């Protein structure tokens, strides 16, 4: 890291828990642990909150991606410090794993962007939104983090294809009614299917289910895509349900390439999330909301909550080494970049923090055991996620500012294996200057080229790219009708590795941002880890005083959505 300002030594130097990194899951844990009375030290090597979930200005985003991309700077290979001054411990140096590769950032109208550069709040882990009925919302309400963040609705969602046309996702009764692209029979079939799902959900919550229709157990275990076929839904509607409502990634019709074939049971759960999201907040337009000032607000809100409960925060503070007990090999503490040694019962680390293989060789088995979660695993099927950020002038759809666009598998080109999701956000969310929009794209991929190709294809479908790029100009489909499309001002393309979190007793490693549209899996893993760390203790238990909760619910669950 760059130059570290001199820090006064931290006091106290002993904590129940040290958390490194201020991503969503780290922040949820820090907040949960502090509110249950543990003493927590929360560190972040960066000068901002959010780690990989941060929302940054364009220059900050650029430098973050560059400094965290492959070809890691040969880490300050200052000869390993003398094992330790203190003879009770041995210290193990840490290595920063880079999550990003194929980073390419291009600016097309630099003057304008420079003028406004600080008015951008661009997400690192976009596109990402919150479903109104998400567990993350419940967690915010429970913890009180909702007091620090405001949301607005995503106005519309669309399904796109190679024709360049964006069709509304008919996700509600009124939307089906208004839809212009569905035939009458399709409207009928789709609504019937929604009613079946609703009736199934109603029957599973109410005991008295004599009249309601239920989906059979057998069907629940079958692949969701087969169940949709069984319901005689036409391909067009199946694709809308699978990729634009259930938000699946892999082509469910292609068993060879599909890494995750969804079961009906899971499919129904995903629809249930969507359906319950639609009506949860009366002032939300649809199922999806997004935090004003960017998704970096979310981890920050939990951090503020943690701070209120006594958690100590230090930014710009990397840790350089772990301290292990010489005798037992157990974890003792960390050494900060400032040189100070801090001790804790437990340690939670950002996914970037790893241990170099060379340093393991000199350690005992017990010591290796302690550090096992920090050793990068070589995965067989290395799934990655390609992300893109575009700053554009104009909007991908007239009269719509905040919108989600989904390109189902094979909708753009025959070899497209996974769905591509695009999220457009406007100045109403305070993420960019007026008359511009920020466009986030993502798709799962096996390798960088495949992912980048898919993203470029989606981009050329939505926006007019100024000049054929120096790289892979063949993948950019030239379009004559690009006159009306929004104009690209700035673009970042990068591929991010998907790292799973790991619980390792005293030391745990958190997951990287995943490929999902929402925070559910991230939050879920944080909750699970908390339960393991703290036994069965419930998250934010003390916050759930009923009185407080009800007033919050009336206040639209604290999710302030303004128009």
């Amino acid at each position, binding site marked *: 890291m760059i130059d570290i300002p001199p820090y006064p030594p931290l006091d106290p130097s002993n904590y129940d828990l040290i958390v490194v990194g201020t991503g969503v899951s780290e922040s949820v844990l820090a907040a949960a642990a502090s509110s249950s009375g543990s003493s927590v030290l929360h560190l972040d090597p960066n000068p901002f909150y959010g780690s990989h979930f941060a929302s940054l200005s364009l220059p900050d985003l650029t430098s973050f991606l560059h400094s965290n991309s492959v070809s890691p700077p040969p880490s300050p290979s200052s000869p390993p410090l003398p094992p330790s001054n203190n003879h009770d411990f041995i210290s193990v140096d840490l290595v920063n794993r880079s999550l990003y590769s194929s980073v390419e950032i291009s600016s097309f109208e630099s003057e304008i962007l420079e003028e406004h550069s600080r008015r951008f709040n661009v997400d690192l882990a976009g596109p990402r939104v919150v479903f109104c009925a998400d567990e993350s919302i419940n967690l915010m309400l429970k913890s009180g983090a909702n007091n620090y963040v405001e949301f607005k609705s995503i106005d519309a969602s669309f399904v796109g294809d190679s024709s360049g046309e964006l069709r509304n996702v008919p996700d509600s*009764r*009124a939307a*089906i*009614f208004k839809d212009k692209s569905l035939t*009458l*029979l399709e*409207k*009928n079939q789709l*609504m019937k299917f929604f009613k079946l799902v609703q009736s199934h959900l109603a029957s599973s919550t109410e005991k008295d289910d004599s009249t309601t229709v239920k989906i059979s157990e057998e069907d629940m275990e079958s692949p969701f895509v087969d169940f949709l076929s069984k319901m005689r839904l036409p391909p067009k509607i199946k694709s809308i349900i699978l990729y634009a409502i259930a938000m699946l990634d892999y082509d469910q019709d292609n068993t060879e390439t599909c890494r995750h074939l969804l079961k009906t049971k899971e499919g129904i759960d995903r629809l249930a999330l969507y359906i319950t999201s639609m009506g949860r907040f009366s002032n939300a337009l649809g199922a999806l909301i997004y935090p004003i000032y960017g998704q970096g607000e979310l981890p920050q809100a939990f951090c503020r909550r943690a701070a209120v409960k006594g958690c100590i925060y230090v930014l710009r503070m990397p840790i350089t080494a772990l301290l292990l007990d010489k005798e037992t090999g157990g974890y003792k503490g960390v050494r900060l970049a400032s040189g100070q040694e801090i001790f804790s019962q437990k340690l939670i680390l950002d996914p970037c923090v790893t241990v170099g293989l060379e340093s393991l060789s000199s350690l005992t088995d017990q010591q290796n055991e302690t550090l096992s979660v920090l050793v990068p695993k070589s995965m067989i099927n290395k799934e990655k996620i390609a992300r893109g950020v575009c700053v554009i002038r104009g909007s991908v759809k007239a009269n719509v500012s905040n919108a989600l666009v989904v390109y189902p598998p094979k909708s753009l080109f025959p070899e497209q294996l996974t769905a591509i999701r695009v999220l457009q956000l406007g100045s109403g969310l305070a993420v960019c200057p007026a008359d511009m929009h920020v466009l986030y794209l993502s798709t799962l991929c096996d390798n960088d080229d495949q992912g980048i190709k898919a993203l470029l294809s989606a981009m050329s479908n939505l926006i007019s790219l100024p000049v054929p790029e120096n790289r892979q100009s063949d993948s950019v489909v030239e379009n004559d009708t690009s006159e009306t499309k929004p104009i690209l001002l700035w673009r970042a393309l990068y591929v991010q590795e998907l790292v799973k979190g790991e619980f390792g007793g005293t030391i745990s490693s958190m997951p990287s941002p995943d490929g999902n549209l929402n925070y559910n899996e991230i939050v879920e893993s944080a909750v699970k880890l908390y339960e393991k760390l703290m036994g069965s203790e419930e998250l934010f238990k003390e916050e759930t005083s009923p009185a407080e909760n009800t007033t919050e619910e009336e206040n639209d669950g604290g999710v302030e959505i303004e128009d």
Partner: protein
Amino acid sequence: MHGRPRNASKPEEEAASAAKAVQLRSLQSQFMTNHHDKIYTNEAIELSTKLLEINPEAYTAWNYRKLAVEDRLARIEPDPNLVSAILDEELRVVESALRQNFKSYGAWHHRKWVLSKGHSSVGNELRLLEKFQKLDSRNFHAWNYRRFVVELTNRSEQDELQYTDDMINNNFSNYSAWHNRSVLLSSLLAQNADGFMPNIKIPEEYDFVHSAIFTEPDDQSGWFYHLWLLDQTLNVETPLLTSSWPSHGSSIILSGAGCLSGSSSMFTTFCSESGSFPLILYFDQAVGGVSSSTVTIDSELKGNEGLVWEPIPNKNSQVSCVWVARLKYVSSDPCEYKVKIRVGNSPGIVSSRGYNFNAPYEFVFTAHVHDTVEDSQEGIVSWTDGFDIWDAKSKDLNSLVTLDRLNAEMDFKWRQEAIDSEVECFGILPDSKIGKLTLARLLMAREAMVSDDAVKGVHYEEILQLYNDLMALDSSHYQYYKDEHSKAFLHKVTSSSESLSRHLLRYRDMNNLVCLRLNNLSLSRIASVEKLLFVQMLDLSHNELHSTEGLEAMQLLSCLNLSHNRIRSFSALDSLRHVKQLKVLDVSHNHIGKHSVDTTRYLCSSPLSNSELGQDDVGKQNPGLVTKYWDAYCVLTDLNLKQLDIAGNEIAGEEFSSFVLQVVPKLVWLDGQKKLGN
């Protein structure tokens, strides 16, 4: 506002409401005193405000306030500021009353009253309405009031139409919005407002409502609107002549009472003791103004100037679909006459909705007057023997083709196209009862529009099947589907000469009467009568008829068989009173008298409402029986029956038989027995 479960109140809530009632009662009595003494002081008015804020339903209090406002307005200077201060206070009270109860008739009416004074700003009203309509978008009070305000503000109907668009897009289960849409469109279409041509707008509206219907076929709002659209498509406003008897180009044989020797079976023979025959005009909708000046007759038959046209069934009514005049002839003067009738030559025939009959129609027929050879016979009419097959060359069936003139209508094409596309559309809506019903209705409408003989009648099988399905699917509306099934069946029978002739016969014994046999078809109602005006003998036995409604137009009918049906009283035969020609009636094996309480009895003239009843000889001799059998008495006294079969009904018996013989002295045959001593 909708779908909220009602919970039983808790004891403390009951206590609270009891306390409120006590308070309310004392307020109410004070208020009544004020009202009675016409006290309009500030305190008294304040009291009524309090009362209304608790109970907006206190209509008297609203009326009191109106009086109070009038009183105050009369006292002050005509300064607009003072006036509007008083009225604004009223608006405020109404608003808070509405917050208490959004559905208070009194409150909404009071607001209208205040607004009509013309001193208040109407701009606020729409804003207030937006607020209320957000809370309950379907509330019809708010929609009513909206229409009122819109009229006051001169807001354009197009803008209001856009508003219904928005409301429907928001939630299409909003019948109030659909209704307002139909009101606005009717008005815009009637004005021929910019771009509002029915041939363009109506198909657009079909597209719009299809989305609602297909998205949720179980929701009623869309279907109601669809029904309205269908009505707009099918209803040709100007009345048309549907059929007549005699029909154009036909020949009839007229004679006095009795039989003709060797009359041709080619033509309808009409015998009359009175020396007149009916001329029947059948319109597609009720019209008035049919008279000797609007319908002119050019004929060699003497004595028919200034014909009297009577509406059937109700003489006193101004309008009817069926109009009858009686043409005189002299049977001792055998000859051939041409008769030319012109309908609507001079204006004056107007539909009940105010549209002029503007398609003058002329028809010509030939009347052969024959001398009577034999004396009238009084033989019994049999329903089993003595029939000859129908001669297909008869011209009587001309009456089947008159409807085709509809095609001459200028805007007929879009209507036909609209119905065609509707048929196509609802053909794909599966498993919906209302969908099937709509499809059946559409197919019926389509049949009515078809003029090409090649494709005429091709849909009836499908229609009948749809109604059969519906009867099986939806037993609670069985009778309705049954009736519609009967209608469709009769439409099918009368759709072509060929299909109708299969049911036609001639009855040899009585001058080759035209006999139509529609027995054993499980008919529950009569239809297509306009095409059967020439029928003289009708066999409807072994059906499921409940009434003879519709038969009144068949002025030539002289023999009617209704045996083995479901007639429950003589009141159900009421329409037969207008069939003056009826001589033979068989109502045996029905349910007359079976139900001691039969509500249909009370729909017709009853002993209490008809003072003339029982004033004749029978009534004077036997007031008890007349009271007991008043409905039979009503019907039978008006008929000239020679033959009646009543056996197999609860009512039948010696007492009733003797009563019948008294009431119908001319009766010859009763239940197959020749009347003795006659």
